[in-house]
């Protein structure tokens, strides 16, 4: 489609602040031991990189203490082109996180679509953005604890231009934990056995060819690739501290500007760099 552009062209990023309740789970309880201040610092580094290094317009939605997981903003919407699908996270408590996001996306003049009623066709559908890998050419939806077939179907109905393939998520709790885009035709994926299995399925299902950048550490498999307005390839990736063995792999990406961005606190909660932002391309397509 006209809106099929090489993956990575973004103009806007939407993030959400780290709340005081960071580390707690949405349904309550204590969760893991995390360092709130460090998490907020890391978020600051990320937003700084997006805004200043990459040059995106950044929209930051304020944190809400009542929504301890709202900073995982990637989960609540899947955006492609001018269309945003507000997802239905597995946890009931998280569904209110979408309200603010919905408002922002509407302001950005995106076509905001909902998953539909709880009843009817999409009944029981769950979908989280971190289970969705959009490659610019097609969608892969990881079937995981958080995302089911129903949810994937709704996604397929929403983005009709694209092939939507479902893959099992092996070796991670969410699809994006084990892979992410590293370029218009590049998929970065963990070299764990589970990830390989998922990759095999993806390769079987796709009509396209992707370069595979295999990284030894799981945590390194989640990066954020953005082709900046100045046509520069940026890759935000976990720091050498977090994934010492994978950094050489990133350095193989020629002509990239690598932006090591720490995300260690978020990863303690199973999140990753991509979990923290929604990327949008508002460049006029036509």
């Amino acid at each position, binding site marked *: *489609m*006209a*809106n*099929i552009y090489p993956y990575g062209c973004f103009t806007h990023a939407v993030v959400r602040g780290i709340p005081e309740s960071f580390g707690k789970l949405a349904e309550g309880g204590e969760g893991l031991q995390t360092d709130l201040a460090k998490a907020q610092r890391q978020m600051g580094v990320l937003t700084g990189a997006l805004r200043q290094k990459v040059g995106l317009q950044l929209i930051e939605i304020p944190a809400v203490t009542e929504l301890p997981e709202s900073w995982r903003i990637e989960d609540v919407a899947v955006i492609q*082109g*001018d*269309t945003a699908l507000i997802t239905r996270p597995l946890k009931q408590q998280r569904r209110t996180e979408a309200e603010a996001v919905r408002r922002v996306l509407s302001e950005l003049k995106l*076509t905001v679509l909902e998953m539909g009623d709880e009843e009817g066709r999409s009944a029981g559908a769950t979908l989280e953005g971190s289970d969705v890998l959009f490659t610019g050419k*097609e969608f892969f*939806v990881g079937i995981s604890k958080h995302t089911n*077939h129903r949810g*994937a*179907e709704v996604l*397929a*109905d*929403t*983005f*009709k*231009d*694209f*092939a*939507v*393939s*479902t893959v*099992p998520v092996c070796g991670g709790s969410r699809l994006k934990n084990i892979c992410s885009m590293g370029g218009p035709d590049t998929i970065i994926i963990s070299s764990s056995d589970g990830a390989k*299995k998922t*990759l*095999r*399925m993806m*390769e*079987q*299902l*796709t*009509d396209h060819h992707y370069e595979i950048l295999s990284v030894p550490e799981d945590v390194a498999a989640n990066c954020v690739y953005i082709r900046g307005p100045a046509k520069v390839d940026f890759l935000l990736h976990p720091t050498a501290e977090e994934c010492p063995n994978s950094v050489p792999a990133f350095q193989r990406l020629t002509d990239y500007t690598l932006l090591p961005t720490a995300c260690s606190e978020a990863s303690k909660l199973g999140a990753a760099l991509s979990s923290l932002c929604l990327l949008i391309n508002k460049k006029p397509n*036509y």
Partner: protein
Amino acid sequence: MTTEVGSDSDVKKDEEKTPGDQQQTDKPAEPPQEKSASIEAESGQEACVSSPPAAGGQKKEKTISRFLPPWLKRQKSQSQDKPSESSAPEQESVELKEEQTDGGGAEQTEEKKEEETEEKSVGSADTQPVREEKEDESELKEEEAVIPHEASVLSGLKLNKKMKMVVCHVTLLDGSLFSCELEKRAKGQYLFFQVCEHLNLLEKDYFGLSFKDNTEQRCWLDPNKEIKRQIRNSQWQFTFSVKFYPLDPSQLTEDITRYLLCLQLRQDIALGRLPCSFVTHALLGSYTLQAELGDHDPDEHRLDYISDFQFAPNQTKELEEKVVELQKSHRGMTPAQSDAQFLENAKKLSMYGVDLHHAKDSDGVDIMLGVCANGLLIYKDRLRINRFAWPKILKISYKRSNFYIKIRPGEAEQFESTVGFKLPNHRAAKRVWKVCVEHHTFFRLVSPEQSTKTKFLTLGSKFRYSGRTQAQTRQASSLIDRPTPYFQRTSSKRLSRSLDGAPVVSVSDYSQAAGAGENGPPLELNSDSKSKLRVQGENIYVRHSNLMLEDLDKTQEDVLKHQASISELKRSFMEATPEPRPSQWDKRLTGSPATTLRMQTQGVPQETPPRPETDSRDASKSAEVKPEVNGQPEVVEVVEETVVIEEVIKPRSPAPEASVPVETECAAEVKEERSLSSDSDSEEEAEYHAQPPSTSISIQQIKEEPEEEQEAELTQAPPSVIESQPITEAVEPALSAEEEKPAEPHEDEHTDDREPMATPDEGPNGHALHAEAPPTAEEEEPHIVNGSSSRVEAEHLPQVICCLEPPVVKTEMVTISDTFAAQKTEISTKEVPIVHTETKTITYEAAQLDGNGDGEPGVLMTAQTITSESLCTTTTTHITKTLKGGLSETRIEKRIVITGDSDIDHDQALAQAIKEAKEQHPDMSVTRVVVHKETELAEDKD
């Protein structure tokens, strides 16, 4: 066909004679006339040989049908009604031809005219007045076309009978109706060409005609079959549409082709067959608008009539506004540019060119099978859950209502697996199979390198069901050299809608309404709306091929028997030949499909072409197999012929036949089993070996002779189509070993009628025959050969062997030798990676009773190959060998490729070629003529 019956009885006599007469001497040189007569006899013979067990009435049993066991036979006769052309006795066709070329044509035309006028009134009755004009036009066209048409396509028909004309209506992509008169027995191709001519379309290969069968399924009209037989009792109403969606429309040569593709896609989109997002609907709509209306004019209130266009299945005001808004940005774009942009965007849609079929997986879960250019896609709801790229598929088959694909093992896997799907019914299974075969051929059996091998390309170019593969059609269209044709872009997408702009309720009518208007034949409207219902309701993509639609009235028992024998053969074959497999496949990972099942795992890692040496199979087996071959659809039309003429200087050194032939035989037998599987398609089940080009050539060669020659061929051979060549080559040497012996008089012992064709080979005297014989070659040849072969078989072992190679769908090789049955049998093997074609190789050779030293290949002294191009392509290979006795022998192989469509007089060309060969080497004798025909597949009976 009366003629056939006549020949039948003749043959019967001959047939009775033969067993005993086997030894009867044949004159060294048989006069031409005699020959053709005997040919005729033979052609009939095949039928009668088989007839005892089978139903008496079937005359049209094709080729090797005589080997069919009675039960099989019966099925066939009931279920397949084959086109008559191919079965017409040779003699008749020759006569016809003369008639036509001489005064006959004119007569016919007159006749035709008469009928036309008759019919015209009939036709115009149900045609709206407005179309009258068009009709006249088409009539004119028709007249022009009459002669070539009949001469070629209908050559087998009796012309003295009055032609019955019929009017048919074709709905074009812009919704208009095209009407023309056809002779009732015209083939699909004829109508298709008429339509293409009307449209001024040269790049036709992407398109096809379809009709609705009695179950309202849309079926593709097989160009090589008579229309009447395909549509049966349905209306003579067809739809012209895109059959193969070009992967990259920008590579189409002409704007008109792109325009037609646009029309198809607009229709697909409007009907919801091609799902798009809102944005895409808007964008595509804006290009449509630009193409049809030109630049946006701010003074115009475009929105007022914009709703006449159908941009989406559920069109909203919002969409229309968006369309108009987007169109403003296309200012200055020409219609052609707009179309191109439209296509650039549409081609990226994930469902572009995907032909969907309802099915269930092994667990009974509803899924959709999507056949597309790249392979087979499996959808559950809208989700893609599996995908099998063509390179991963080894074989496609169906059995009753099941459809199977055999998957190449992945890197980590040891065994191939078979995945099965359940289709709603047998016909549906067959349809999917068919569509797969077609798409595989069209899109996959092509490699870019082929472009350099023009010679071979031409060879393969006409085989296909649809004529050509994508690569070939691209190549052909690159040669198009004409001024851009003018064509009118009609605003076909108009639909009168209520002024309030409410979305159209009945989407389907729109295309109809646009073209035919209210005046359109009611019937069509009907069917159209029906189709729409189906399409929308069940989400069926209605592009189907009818090629495989015949269906069995066979009893369940028969079916089972058949299957049993097939599987038995298969099994034994498998066990016999564990082989390394070609590794050239792409290394796509094989995941195990999520919902699909692995039906069975076979012990054999790969199906590979068997090596002759490893295989030992008894003759009876091959005989058994033959029936399968029969199952093949008839050859309707000869598109191509390859004639191999070998001239041999024979030293006088008789040598006993050695083991070589035997070996060869084994090979052939093995192959045959394969053929079995692939041939069976016309039966209840069918298989298609989707091996990629070039897979196995090297492995399977059976060679004893000039290695160079083979190699050369191999390297030359483009992966796909050409495969057949090398292999044939490989075999030939082996065969020739036999023939290289001096032709002895006693060869003639063969019954005269028996191998009319063989005579040429017999010695110097025989050349007269050559000149004569060839003419018969065309369609009839296979028959004759078959006839004779059948006889051979009756007497002994498999003298006739059909070999199929995996990539082949319909391939047949028949080798017939004059040699005594007692003597070694000849076997030829060939591999043809062609799908919708039937390929035959027929070898005629002089019998060489006393084997010469050929059992031993001898020492190769020289071998050279000269290729020249003239009328036809000729490849000459000189091979000089030292034989046992220290004698040397030179064998010259000429490979003559005659390519052309039906308009070419193959017989003539063949005769000429042989004559020339004779003249060039007067001191040599022709020992063997191998006619290798590759024809478009005629379809099985409906």
